[in-house]
C-alpha cells in the first residue's frame, strides 16, 4: 500500500552504471590540513595511486576532531574511519595532535570495548612530505576494512553476558555499629546546624519503601534526628552539591569514601568551592542490596578520606578491619574482553537496545553537571533523539566518553538505570584505560588537572600508524 520511494541519486545515476561487482568499502578519513592533507596532495602530485574507497574531510587540526565525529561517521554508514594528522612536534598549533592522541587513545579503547571491529578504526601520523606513507596507510586501512566487510547491524548471537559476580566474604556492619554511627552522625549534623557552621545538611533519611534510605535535606537542628545511616545508603549525595546553596552557612554533606571522590572531581572542575563545603565523612562497610554487596564496595575499605572536615567512625579499634576483595567489575570486563569483537558488539547492542533514554544515568551522576547536555544540543543534532539503536548507541558512547578520566566509579548511573545497562563496566573500563595510559586516577587530588586536558610528550601511541 506504500508507494516505493524513488532512489536517492548516486554517482552512478550520472552516467552509465559503474560495473562494480560486489561491495566497495567506504572509508572516511578525517585529516588535518597542515600535514596529512598536504601529504595526500603530495601523493597526487607524485602520481601515486591508492584505493578510491577513502574520502577526505579537512580539519584545521586533529585537536579539532571530536571523537563523536567518528561515531557520526559510522552512523552515516562509513565502513571504516581513519584519523590522521601531524607527527608529534610537527603540529601547526604546537600541541593539538598531542591532545588528540590522548583523546583518541581513550576513545579507541571505548570503541573496541563496545565491539567496534578494530579493523574499522585507524589512526596515523602522516606529514606533508609523506606522500608514500599516505598511500601505504590508505592501502592498509582499506585492506583492513575490506577484510572486516560491510558494516552491518548485529546479527543476534549467543548470550555472552558476564557471569554473576563472585560471592563476597564480607558481611554488613552489625546493627549496633550502624546505630552508633547513625547517632554520632545525628549529633554532628545537629551541632553543625546549631552552631550555624552549616545552614543545610545533606544526608540520608527514611524513605517510604522498606529498607530504602532517600536523600534528605536537613536545615533545622531538631531535624537531624531524621538522619539515618545503614547499609542501604546508596545515593551519592554529591550530585546535589553544585545546585545547593548554603546562603550564610556552608553546605554540609554526608559522604562515603566513594562519594568523596566525586566531590574531588567537582572541586577539580570548579563546580564547588571547598570553603563553602563541610564534608561529613562516614565510615562505610559497604552498601548492600539485599544480600548483595555493591560491586564498587568490594575493593574499598570504606575509611574516611582526609579531605573530610569531620569523620564519623567507630570509636576505638575495630575488632576486624574490612577485608578488601577484588573488584568484580574487573572480572566482568575481563570476561567481555575474551569475546570476539562481534560478540562484544552483540552484547553491548543488546544492552543499548533496552535504553529508554530516561537520562537517569546522567541525572544521578555528580559529574554530569552540564547545564544543557550535549544530548539536547540540536544545532547541530549531536545525538539522535530517536530512542533506537542509533540514538541509544550514540548516547551511551558519548556519556561514557565524557566521563573518561573523570568517573570515579560510584556506579550511581548503573544503579539508577531502569534497564540495568552495565554502565558501570563502560565507566570502569575507561577508568582503567586512563590509569594505564596516563597514570591518572580520578577523584584523588582536587589540585590535579584532568588527564584529557593534559598530555605528555611521550604518551604511548602504539595505536597510531
Amino acid at each position, binding site marked *: 500500500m506504500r508507494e516505493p520511494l524513488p532512489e536517492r541519486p548516486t554517482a552512478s545515476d550520472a552516467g552509465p552504471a559503474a560495473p562494480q561487482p560486489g561491495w566497495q568499502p567506504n572509508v572516511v578519513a578525517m585529516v588535518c590540513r597542515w600535514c596529512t592533507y598536504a601529504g595526500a596532495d603530495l601523493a597526487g602530485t607524485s602520481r601515486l595511486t591508492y584505493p578510491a574507497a577513502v574520502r577526505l574531510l579537512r580539519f584545521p587540526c586533529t585537536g579539532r576532531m571530536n571523537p563523536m565525529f567518528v561515531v557520526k561517521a559510522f552512523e552515516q554508514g562509513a565502513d571504516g574511519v581513519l584519523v590522521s594528522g601531524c607527527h608529534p612536534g610537527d603540529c601547526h598549533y604546537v600541541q593539538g595532535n598531542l591532545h588528540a592522541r590522548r583523546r583518541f587513545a581513550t576513545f579507541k579503547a571505548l570503541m573496541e570495548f563496545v565491539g567496534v571491529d578494530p579493523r574499522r578504526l585507524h589512526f596515523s601520523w602522516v606529514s606533508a612530505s609523506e606522500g608514500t606513507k599516505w598511500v601505504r596507510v590508505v592501502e592498509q586501512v582499506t585492506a583492513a576494512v575490506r577484510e572486516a566487510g560491510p558494516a552491518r547491524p548485529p546479527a543476534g548471537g549467543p548470550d555472552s553476558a558476564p557471569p554473576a559476580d563472585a560471592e563476597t566474604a564480607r558481611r554488613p556492619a552489625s546493627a549496633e555499629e550502624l546505630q552508633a554511627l547513625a547517632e554520632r552522625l545525628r549529633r554532628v549534623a545537629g551541632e553543625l546546624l546549631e552552631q550555624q557552621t552549616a545552614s543545610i545538611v545533606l544526608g540520608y533519611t527514611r524513605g517510604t519503601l522498606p529498607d530504602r534510605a532517600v536523600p534528605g535535606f536537613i536545615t533545622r537542628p531538631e531535624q537531624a534526628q531524621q538522619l539515618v545511616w545503614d547499609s542501604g545508603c546508596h545515593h551519592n549525595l554529591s550530585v546535589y552539591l553544585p545546585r545547593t546553596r548554603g546562603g550564610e552557612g556552608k553546605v554540609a554533606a554526608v559522604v562515603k569514601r566513594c562519594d568523596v571522590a566525586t566531590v574531588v572531581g567537582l572541586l577539580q572542575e570548579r563546580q564547588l568551592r571547598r570553603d563553602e563545603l563541610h564534608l561529613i565523612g562516614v565510615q562505610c562497610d559497604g552498601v548492600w542490596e539485599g544480600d548483595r554487596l555493591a560491586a564498587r564496595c568490594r575493593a574499598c575499605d570504606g575509611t574516611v578520606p582526609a579531605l573530610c572536615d569531620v569523620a564519623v567512625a567507630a570509636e576505638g579499634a575495630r575488632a576486624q578491619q574490612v577485608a578488601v576483595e577484588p573488584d568484580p567489575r574487573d572480572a566482568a570486563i575481563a570476561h567481555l574482553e575474551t569475546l570476539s569483537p562481534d560478540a562484544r558488539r552483540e552484547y553491548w547492542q543488546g544492552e543499548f537496545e533496552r535504553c529508554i533514554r530516561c537520562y537517569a544515568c546522567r541525572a544521578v551522576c555528580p559529574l554530569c553537571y552540564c547545564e544543557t547536555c550535549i544530548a539536547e544540543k540540536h544545532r547541530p543534532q549531536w545525538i539522535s*533523539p530517536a530512542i533506537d539503536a542509533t540514538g541509544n548507541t550514540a548516547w551511551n558512547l558519548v556519556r561514557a566518553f565524557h566521563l573518561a578520566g573523570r568517573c570515579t566509579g560510584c556506579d550511581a548511573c548503573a544503579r539508577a538505570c531502569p534497564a540495568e545497562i552495565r554502565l558501570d563496566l563502560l565507566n570502569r573500563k575507561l577508568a582503567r584505560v586512563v590509569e594505564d595510559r596516563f597514570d591518572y586516577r580520578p577523584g584523588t587530588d582536587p589540585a590535579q588537572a584532568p588527564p584529557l586536558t593534559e598530555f605528555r610528550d611521550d604518551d604511548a601511541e602504539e595505536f597510531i600508524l
Partner: protein
Amino acid sequence: MEQRGWRLSAEDVRTWVDRLIAEGREVIAPVEGRGPRVFRPLGCAAEACLDPGKTRWSPKEFLFPRTETLYHYRLRADGPELHDPPLAERERVLFGVRPCDAAGLVRLDEVFLDGPVQDPLYARRRELTTVVALACQEAGPECFCTAVGGSPMGTEGVDVLVLPFGADWLVRAVTDKGRALAAESWTRAHAGQWSLAADQVRRVEQRIARAPVAGDVAAVLERRFEDPVWQETARRCVSCSICAYVCPSCSCFDVHHEGDAWGGREIRCWDACTFPLFTRHASGHNPRGGSAARYRQRALHKFAYLLPDAERTTRCVGCGRCIALCPAGIDIHDTVTRTAAGAEGEGADA
C-alpha cells in the same frame, strides 16, 4: 453472566500462545533475559514469563512506541515529496499484562483517540491489539492500584482476564475481541473455581497497604498549587524521566526532524514533563523551569488535570513503578495523599 470462562493448565496456556503465534499474530509478553523483565515479542510460548511480579516498565511502547516516524520526505528540485509511514498490519496480542498496565492503555486511548484529532498510527495499532491480562499473584510495597480505583484483577482495558488457580489458570473473555482468541476445545471453569481464585487475588489486594486517594483530590491539589510540599519533595528530584517512561499512562512526546542533504523524516519520541527542556521556549523562558514546578505538573496531570469524566479521580493507575524506580526515592502516592490530607511537609518525605 453466562461468562463462566475456562480453566487451562499451564500446558494449555502454552499451546494457546503458540497457536496465537501460529495464526500469524504477534504475541508480546513479559520475557526474562539479560536485564530486567520486560515485554517482548515472543518466538514461542516458552519464552514468556508469567511469574509473580511485574515488568520493569509497562507495555505501552507497543502502542505508543519510544520512537516512530510520522512522515518521510525527499527533497526534489521542485520541492519536497512527502510520504506517510506504513500502518501496522499484523494482529497483536499483549499477553500477561497486569491490570494496572491494561488500565494504562485506556489512558493512552483518551489522549490519542478521544480528542479532536485521532492519531492514525496509534489507532491502527490499537485496533489490531488484544489485551490478555493476568491478575496479580503478589503486591509490592510500591503497589497502590486499589488506592486509585483499580484492582489486581481489574478489567479496565482488558479483553481477556486470566486468574491464577493453583498450578492452573482461569481464563475469561471480557470483550468480544477477547473471545475471538479463545478455543472451542477449552475446558469450562465453574463459578466456584472463580470465587476461589478471586479470593486468592483478594488476599493479594489486601496486602496493598496504601491509603486510597480521596475523591476530591483534584480540587484539593489544585488549591494547594503553591503548597511548599512541591518544593520540599522535588528538591530531591534529579530531573530524569524514569517515572514518566516506566509509567503506563504517561503519553507525552516530542516531535523531531531528522534530515540530510537528500531527505529526512519527522519522528515522534517519548518525552517527559520532568525534563527541564520540555517546556523551555526558544527565547530561554521556561514556564516550568524548576524541578518543583515540573514535579507538580506531573502529579497534577495524574491526579487533577483533564480527567476524562467525573467518576475517575486519577489518570494514575497505581502500578507504583515510579516509586520503586525513582533514583531519589520520591513517592507520588505519598506526596498526593499527604497533600490532599493537608499534612504539613513533615515526615519522611520532607
